[in-house]
């Protein structure tokens, strides 16, 4: 345990704003990729995963405004009603910011167990808006993306901390 904590407190350089923006753009790009129809149901929402990551890791740098604007972008890209992803991402950002002290203390496996319900909640909010406006129920496979997203959490965490690890601080080495 102590070793793990030491590892999670590994010395990392502060994150650059350009990197945050770039990561969000890439996430958006991955959402827009023309995924084959056969696997589209299990493709996670990369933007919500990235938003959650930055809310947990950089709650002072990244917050509601960015999450909300990204939600608007997703709504336009999907051609859905304005504001449903904005609403979902805002709630996700809130959960991330409130829980950031707690979640990051856990081991990676337990972090996944936190991330999956948060992503499911995002999906549920979008679904709730949809139902109020009136559509059919999408079936249980609609939520598969959230579980895949949760399983991708370790990979996302690793990739998004990568540039901070590349240059270890000379003082601590």
């Amino acid at each position, binding site marked *: 345990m102590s070793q793990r904590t030491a590892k999670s407190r590994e010395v990392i350089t502060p994150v650059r704003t350009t990197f945050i923006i770039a990561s969000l*753009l890439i996430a*958006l*790009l*991955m*959402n*827009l*990729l*023309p*995924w084959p*129809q056969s696997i*589209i*149901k299990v*493709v996670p929402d990369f933007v919500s995963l990235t938003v959650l990551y930055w809310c947990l890791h950089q709650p002072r740098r990244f*917050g*509601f405004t960015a*999450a*909300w604007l990204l*939600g*608007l*972008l997703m709504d*336009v*890209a*999907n*051609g*859905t*009603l*304005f*504001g*449903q992803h*904005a*609403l979902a991402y*805002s*709630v996700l*950002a*809130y959960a991330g*910011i*409130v829980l950031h002290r707690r979640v990051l203390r856990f081991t990676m496996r337990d972090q996944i167990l936190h991330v999956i319900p948060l992503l499911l909640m995002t999906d549920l909010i979008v679904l709730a*808006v*949809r139902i109020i*406006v009136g*559509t*059919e129920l*999408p*079936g249980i*496979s*609609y939520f598969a993306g959230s579980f895949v997203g949760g399983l991708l959490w370790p990979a996302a965490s690793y990739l998004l901390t990568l540039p901070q690890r590349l240059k270890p601080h000379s003082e601590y080495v």
Partner: protein
Amino acid sequence: MEQILPPFFKHGPAPLVRLLLCSLLSIALLITDARYKYLGGTRQVIALTLYPLQRLANAPGVLAVHLSEFFITRGMLRTENDRLAEQHLHDAATLQKYRALELENAHLRELLGIRGHYSTGIAAAEIVYSEHDPFIKKIVIDKGAQQQIKAGQPVIDQAGLIGQVTRLYPWLAEVTLITDKQHMVSVQNLRNSQRAVLAGHGADGQLELKFIPLNADFQVGDQLVTSGIDGIYPAGLPVAVVVDVERNPAELFARIICKPLAGVANHTQVLILDIDNTTPPRPPQEENPDSVKKKNKDK
């Protein structure tokens, strides 16, 4: 000493306050968009910023197509050429027949005084991406307002009707597929010319004929084409084929499930048909019986 807080303590509004603010804003947007449809302009602006990303996301696919075209072999070209030549001969014969028929048809229509409304304006487009959203049956194509595409134009592929342009962006257009839950097409049965309304089924990519009486003459295998009555789709476009007819005497209407003829879920090239709305205007509505009654009461 004035109390200057170090930046560490500067938080701004509490998260809950911000959440409430964002949520209220989102809900306000939702209501504005759903009820009043004021946000078309905003959507266009945001779509413009998204456009480069959308093209970029599509780039790998386009590149793959180009690469596969590059590595095509001579043998494949030959076989394809032979096939196309044969197809061409075949088509030429059909076309001649068609031309003769068209002439005859035009002549007959002239005689009858009916305006021909099957237009010839056609634009080819490519599908940029399908929505990353299991609820919606929509696709985005690479022609938009700049290419004189208009909302309401029908979109077809080589096999039949795909859908209708519903939202325009400067260089892109959104097409609602016929399988969308909100989408209806006025069709007729090719076998007996019976009219009906064909509605999308949503998730499972099928279609259903609505409000068909139990004893109506629909059989499995019947082909449905557009009737042209709705003034949106030109008459005679193939739409769907009946795959299942269920007549349950306990219900008012027969349950008729159809399968779209066009490759609604898998295609990359589509055609956008041009329509000139030459449908004559509706006759003026007769006065509402309720208001007539009221007037009589007032007297």
